């Protein structure tokens, strides 16, 4: 555990009286000072050159070794990396926190591209469960299908699957956009808190179950609505946004967004009011 001590050198926030202590030891607080923005260092990131390109064949590598090699290549300034023969390996491409063009020539297993912040990724194959979990920023495009828990808990960025996805897509998502070219499984948008999900095809049962906030757009049939998921009016600004988003995502070029259904949270779950448990039963 880090030590706490007083310090004479004051940061801007300390000068403003927000706090008086700093952490020392192995874990240290980092304070962002706008005056020193150019010196601000985001641990584990690299300045890369997109024009500096290389291939990496991971056929005989473990996922850990492959990820270390990607990190090493980024540290050498490579900004475009093509991964050959991923062959369904799990946890490839995780924890990339800077801009990067990353291309996978094949399919990934579970937890591919998890906890990333910034890379532009194209996967010319399929992805397994929990692809791009906790994505903060960037863009991940999957050319084929995806497994369940696609985009679980993402905070930002664009996550695009041109095929179909499994169950619980966008579970617990807190921002960003998920776009599905095909169909989506059960419990899509389960407990989502913010962000948008676009599904051009059909979606399974319990859509948007227990969603707190956010918006789901569906082009096809809905298996059933989950608890507290309700229809909302599709406005003209919604349609404009959908057209822009689909165009940027290079998906559904001729799709008629005016016929899409918009699903939002009814906000009648207990956490949206101060009703007692017995009262809220009557409210739902």
């Amino acid at each position, binding site marked *: 555990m880090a030590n706490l001590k007083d310090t004479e050198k004051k940061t801007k926030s300390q000068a403003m009286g927000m706090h008086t202590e700093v952490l020392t030891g192995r874990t240290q607080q980092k304070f962002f000072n706008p005056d020193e923005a150019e010196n601000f260092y985001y641990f584990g990131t690299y300045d890369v050159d997109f024009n500096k390109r290389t291939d990496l064949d991971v056929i005989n590598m473990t996922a850990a070794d492959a990820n270390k090699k990607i990190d090493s290549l980024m540290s050498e300034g490579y900004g475009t990396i093509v991964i050959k023969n991923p062959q369904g390996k799990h946890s490839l491409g995780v924890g990339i926190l800077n801009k990067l063009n990353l291309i996978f020539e094949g399919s990934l297993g579970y937890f591919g591209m998890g906890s990333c912040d910034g890379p532009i990724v194209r996967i010319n194959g399929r992805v*397994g469960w929990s692809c791009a979990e906790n994505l903060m920023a960037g863009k991940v495009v999957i050319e*084929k299908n995806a497994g*369940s828990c696609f985009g679980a808990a993402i905070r930002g960025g664009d996550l695009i699957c041109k095929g179909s996805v499994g169950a619980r897509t966008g579970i617990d998502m807190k921002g960003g956009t998920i776009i599905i070219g095909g169909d989506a499984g*059960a*419990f899509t948008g389960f407990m989502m808190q913010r962000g948008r999900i676009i599904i051009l095809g059909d979606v*399974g049962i319990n859509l948007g179950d227990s969603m707190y906030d956010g918006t789901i757009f569906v082009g096809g049939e809905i298996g059933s609505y989950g608890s507290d998921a309700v229809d909302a009016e599709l406005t003209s600004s919604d349609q404009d946004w959908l057209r822009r988003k689909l165009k940027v995502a290079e998906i559904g070029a001729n799709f008629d967004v005016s016929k899409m259904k918009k699903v939002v949270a009814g906000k009648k779950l207990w956490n949206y009011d101060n009703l007692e448990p017995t009262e809220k039963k009557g409210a739902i």
Partner: protein
Amino acid sequence: MCGIAGLIHRGKSSNVGSELQGMLQALKHRGEDSTGYALYGDTDGKNFIMRFKVGENVGEGSSSIVEDVSVYDERKKIVDQTLTELGAKIVKEERTLPYSLRYEIVYDKKDLLDFSQKIESIPGVEILSMGKSLEVIKDLGNAKAVCDRYSLDKLVGTHAIGHARMATESGVDIKSAHPFWGYPFSDVSVVHNGQLTNYWNNRRALESQGMRFMSECDSELIAVYLAQKMREGSSLEEGMKESLTGLDGVFTYFVATKNSLGMAKDTMAAKPLVLYESDDLVAMGSEEIAIRSILPQEIDTYDPFDGEVKVWQI
């Protein structure tokens, strides 16, 4: 967590023993307490193949009680005697391990219920499979260890299902290992990944109708449930569809018969399954790396949706 894998060649035979071993070994991180194979080999279809055990593997990690090996010989003698009494003739006998045997037998009657009940009334004896093509081989250890122990890598056939088990709800022993034979139906086997939450209710109901359970593994319920549905006149596919509501919990399971292979996924889609389908081959497993062990080239795969049932013929 357990791993399941299966494949079916359509219109041809292949080395399914070796292929399934590769698929299950790729899933060994999902559990290697025990591994089981249900292999549908090429046979002339005349004789029954009975795989049975007269004791448990009591090696390292086993939860079974150690027995004197001499009881295995005594049990085998009683099995041989009972087979004679039933009118069955042993034409080939293999004893791979002291507790594990494979018989090829001539038996004319179609109803295997009476046959199985009499054999299994011998204490310590369990029929692992009975069929004219099916052979269930299961034991403790990972896929390669079991494959090597039983020399399965050269078995040629049309289809197979298998299971890599992490024991959670019952012991580390052969009786709780998958696949389960669809007792008393010839050539029916089941593997399962998940948990069934209405196991005891269903078990009590099925036992009251005369169905037999050999273990306390919840997955065995699926085999017994489907067998009962077929006894009542349902087709296998109809039974599988009924299981989506009849079984409660989370599950993905495979079931195989002499000529077909099927999969079912619960309505919560809580257990994984990746599927590859082409004109001449269907391969599926809990993770894509299982399929990649036999198809390393880039292929199109997908996850079946919630509540989906599919059946393929050879």
